[in-house]
């Protein structure tokens, strides 16, 4: 099913809305009327619906099958949450309405904030960050603000090699120099090396736990003690919080700040790349520096604190400022709270357990055909890490396996990440996959592994059955074509 671009299909005189007549008034545009055409093609409603419906069918989604992307946690997106987020009382209120007219919205934010604090065991949470990386920025800004407040201008942030790219990028964005911490042979932070590096120039350590190898950092408490002893802070990348929610509270591990990806842990839809939402929980040491605005319950009423000056309480009066216009991703908050209430106490714990059980099942079922990099060091958490060693000598690598999976009807796993494992393949089934679904994936991967070794040439150019074959990314980057332009020929013909 091929579908042309809107620009090849629509026309500037086509329109899919009906609007009432425009009353005649004297223009107040001050002579700034737009005269030149925008060149914006339109479609009638039937054609618009058909265009995007057809395009949608070139996508893979969770609704079509397992999405075993390590570190990205593509779990089921409940439709109840979509319905709740569309209640007019949430979807159709303006961020600057008088607070008396939005008490229910503030109650929702406060309620979600409460459960995020309870689930993480941390005393404060900033709700406004718009995504995980934005949450990291929030956390690192709080750390820097806390250090500056005590006159401490440390310049270095330590980051494990296995970290998400956002970690070093965020630290750099906050003006820090980034240094790597090595991993030990078991895929964990090398505690001795870390201790050796700590000193008065280190502002913070950014750790992911469970880490990007899918492993829990058993020395986490010791790491925290060492970092705090050195006068630095512990930032935790919470991307993998779904593996421990309800079973472990980051606050009990000595963490000072951690963002929570609402789409990873609390099932808000990924939507082809966003919107996200990345609230950040803080320890008592960082709480006073948390960003504005936030919601404060005062007796029966909820207040929205938007200005530092409005702060009565001494623990919030050193806020580092505002991270976004307005108050964060309300639509995602509704979905996340709907998810939390749906699971409740027993359900959230079960989420972590099933996520971990599923990943270990995949690990156990594939470790005889793929090299399971750290399987010797015990069970994994929510994701299973393999390498492409088994393809040595075939000239094939991870990417070829990934693309071959497409022809089997699956979305590929995460490839070449984390960087600490050569040819890494990171598989995260998530807790919303059934055993049958995983058995299908396992069966397909086992069969593929066998077939790729038997006939490597058949897989160099996979996929064959997808809407597009392998796309030339190099050509795209060499001479970027980022917008559509009328082909010269067509123009000449007119």
């Amino acid at each position, binding site marked *: 099913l091929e*579908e042309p671009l809107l620009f090849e299909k629509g*026309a*500037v005189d086509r329109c899919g809305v009906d*609007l009432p007549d*425009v009353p005649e*008034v*004297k223009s*107040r*545009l*001050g*002579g700034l*009327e*737009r005269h030149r055409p925008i060149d*914006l093609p*339109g479609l009638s409603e039937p054609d*618009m619906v058909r265009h995007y419906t057809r395009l949608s069918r070139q996508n*893979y*989604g969770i609704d079509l099958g397992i999405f075993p992307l390590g570190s990205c946690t593509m779990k089921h997106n409940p439709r109840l949450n979509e319905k709740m987020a*569309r209640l*007019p009382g949430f979807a159709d*209120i*303006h961020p*600057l309405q008088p607070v008396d*007219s939005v*008490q229910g919205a503030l109650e929702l934010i406060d309620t979600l904030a409460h459960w995020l604090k*309870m689930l993480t065991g941390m005393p404060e949470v900033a709700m406004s960050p*718009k*995504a995980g990386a934005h949450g990291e*920025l929030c956390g690192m800004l709080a750390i*820097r603000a806390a250090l500056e407040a005590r006159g401490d201008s440390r310049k270095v942030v330590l980051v494990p090699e296995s970290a998400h*790219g956002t970690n*070093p*990028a965020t630290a*750099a*964005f906050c003006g820090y120099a980034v240094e790597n911490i090595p991993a030990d042979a078991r895929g964990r932070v090398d505690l001795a090396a870390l201790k050796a590096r700590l000193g008065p120039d280190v502002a913070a350590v950014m750790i992911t736990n469970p880490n990007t190898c899918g492993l829990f950092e058993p020395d*986490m408490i010791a790491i925290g003690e060492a970092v705090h002893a050195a006068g630095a802070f512990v930032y935790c990348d919470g991307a993998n919080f779904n593996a421990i929610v309800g079973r*472990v509270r980051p606050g*009990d591990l000595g963490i000072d700040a951690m963002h929570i990806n609402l789409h990873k842990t609390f099932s808000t839809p*990924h*939507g*082809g790349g966003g*919107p996200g939402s990345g609230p950040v929980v803080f320890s008592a040491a960082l709480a006073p520096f948390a960003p504005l605005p936030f919601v404060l319950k005062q007796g029966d009423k909820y207040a929205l604190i938007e200005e530092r000056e409005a702060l009565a309480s001494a623990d919030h009066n050193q806020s*580092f400022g505002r991270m*976004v216009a*307005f108050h964060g991703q*309300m639509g995602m908050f509704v979905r996340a709270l*709907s998810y*939390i*209430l749906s699971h409740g106490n*027993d359900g959230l714990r079960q989420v972590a357990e099933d996520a971990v059980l599923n990943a270990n099942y995949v690990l*156990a079922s594939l470790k005889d055909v793929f090299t399971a990099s750290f399987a010797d060091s015990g069970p994994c958490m929510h994701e299973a890490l393999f390498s492409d060693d088994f393809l040595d000598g075939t000239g094939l690598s991870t990417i070829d396996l990934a693309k071959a999976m497409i022809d089997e009807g699956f*979305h590929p796993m995460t490839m070449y990440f984390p960087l600490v494992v050569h040819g890494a393949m990171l598989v995260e089934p998530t*807790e919303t996959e059934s*055993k049958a679904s995983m058995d299908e994936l396992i069966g397909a991967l086992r069969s593929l592994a066998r077939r790729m070794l038997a006939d490597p040439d058949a897989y160099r*150019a996979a996929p064959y059955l*997808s809407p597009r074959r392998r*796309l030339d990314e190099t050509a*795209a980057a060499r001479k*970027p074509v*980022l917008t559509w332009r009328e082909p010269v020929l067509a123009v000449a013909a007119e």
Partner: protein
Amino acid sequence: MRYLPLTPADRADMLRVIGAPDIDALFADVPEAARLDGPIHGLTPHMGELEVERALSKMAAKNLHAGATPFFLGCGAYKHHVPASVDHIIQRGEFLTSYTPYQPEIAQGTLQVLFEFQTQVARLTGMEVANASMYDGSTAMTEAVFMARRITRRTKALISSGVHPHYVAVLRTLTRFTDDEIVTRTPDLTSDDYLVELAESVDKETSCVVVQNPSLFGHVADLTPLAEACHAAGALLIVVVTEAVSFGALKSPGEMGADIVVGEGQSIGNGLNYGGPYLGLFACREKHVRQAPGRLCGETVDADGRRGFVLTLSTREQHIRREKATSNICTNSGLCALAFTAHLTLLGEVGLRKLAALNHARAVQMAERLARVPGVELVSQTFFNEFTISLPQEARPVVRKLAERGVLAGVSLNRLFPGVRDLERGLIVAVTETVTDGDMDAYEDALDEVLA
């Protein structure tokens, strides 16, 4: 539990395959001290759909929503009518539940949408290229200032007093620990000379000038002279647009000489949502694209020579460049961009222009009505669908009293500039196509009453 497919029998089978005695064994790496054995205090057990609906609907019912009342708020978030077909499209599972299109062979749907989105945004803003969206307008503006610094290698940014104060606050937060110099001024409602003053302030240290059009107060102005002043000094002009519908009525920022255009795209395809998720727009000149933040979708061909789309220039991005990336951004607003593109496709050129004309005409009608209320003065001489009036008394309490009468009357300047005495009587009023004559009557009558 309805979202968890494993049965107790499945779990037992799987533990057997794993060779673990029980689930606790899989959590062996967690230190004893950090194991949570009891329940989360106060959290109820899992609830059915009906119970969750009841709990959330109860909260929702405590809010007065825009559709239920005469409604006149703007200031960076606008109530427009979104066609039902747009919401239908974004709920297609293949769009809603898909991932960032890193596997382009099975993500052409999302990628083609992003390519269409980029083209639409570039055309609206009058720029050559646009990215695949950002978190919102405020963070897009900050990224633009950083991009200007990378391009000009200068650190001073001049911010117009007509820029939304939340946007300025975000920029201030993110430059707090950098060596950027952010020059701002409190707005002065009695004078419209801020653009002239800005143009005069540009110097060889200036990286960029940031100006919002229409301004926070609703004013529209020709930015051409300012652009010329910037370019003469080697600085960039960054134009912020928070009401995307205005693109249908006003000369584009590109035509006026902007180098980077950022904006909030919520107005098209997206609801108010109490402030988020929203849609950051980001457009620039082609020559600067390698300094741009965020995702870019580009055209290419597949192994069979067929046209296809991929995320491109990712060597700018954090997952490749890590600490050397142009931004730490990893998420865009993909689904909001789809809503924007689908709605704009319904509108097309004719529809967007008519929608914009309708907004303007309704705003002019309303401004004229309010101007005749005794004691009210129309501050804005030129505007699109939003204007500022000055009341005979402090605006914030008036807004509250009007809300008690069921009229959501606008945004008081006190709310945005708390403590600034000179602005305390100012009120910003937005009027879109959703405002009826009855709404206007209700506002006028209520204001008459409150001010009497």
